[in-house]
């Protein structure tokens, strides 16, 4: 499955990284504690979090996730989007809770 397919199936807002939606997704991880994400998330996963600040880009890039879904309608700062674009990481947004997002991801076959 690709990031683009997830965007379509879940009706997510693409906040940035539109050129990298062809990236393959395998597995997922939910977490708002950055060290836990760094310790446990696997490469190419979709990461669901409510954190929308700059440090998520460092973590996403280090783990090499395929995309980040910022849930609960949390805002993502403009400079975060610029950095994410630089790092080629799609940032997607959803108004739903992390639980609902994950439920939809599972339903979509992730």
């Amino acid at each position: 499955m690709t990031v683009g397919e997830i965007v379509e199936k879940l009706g997510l807002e693409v906040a940035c990284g539109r050129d990298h939606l062809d990236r393959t997704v395998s597995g997922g991880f939910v977490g708002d504690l950055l060290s836990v994400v760094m310790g446990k998330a696997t490469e190419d996963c979709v990461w669901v979090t409510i954190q929308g600040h700059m440090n998520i880009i460092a973590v996403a890039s280090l783990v090499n996730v395929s995309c980040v879904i910022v849930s609960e309608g949390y805002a993502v700062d403009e400079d975060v989007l610029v950095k994410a674009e630089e790092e080629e990481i799609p940032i997607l947004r959803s108004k739903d809770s992390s639980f609902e997002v994950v439920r939809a991801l599972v339903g979509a076959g992730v």
Partner: protein
Amino acid sequence: MKMHYDVEGGEFINVGTASSQFKKTLKMLGIGADIIRRISISMYEAEINMVIHANGGSIDTEITPERIHVVLQDQGPGIENLDLAMKAGYSTASRQAREMGFGAGMGLQNMKRNCDELQISSVLGEGTRVEITVYLNQES
């Protein structure tokens, strides 16, 4: 090849600048992706600690054909009980740091797990020195 980075304290919003620059350098040098991931995670965790606990510090890196060696030195409060600090889930991070998703108490664990050698020496009231080594010539 040696590099030096100064890390400013207090700014939680853009932690990891040094780690991210170092990671780019390693990529340019053609170092393997898994090695880069391991050393970058270790260094990033250590850099975070420096910012949230010690008001910044300095980082010196050295790349040789055999290994990547990173030394982080701060003049912070020091670690009172290293055994306790190494315990998963233990954290003394501030509320502000926790609200940003730091302070899970997993940092030192992540560092240990992702490098080949980790040395921490700390003196209360004087500072902490963290040395991280990842070897290049062995598959992990």
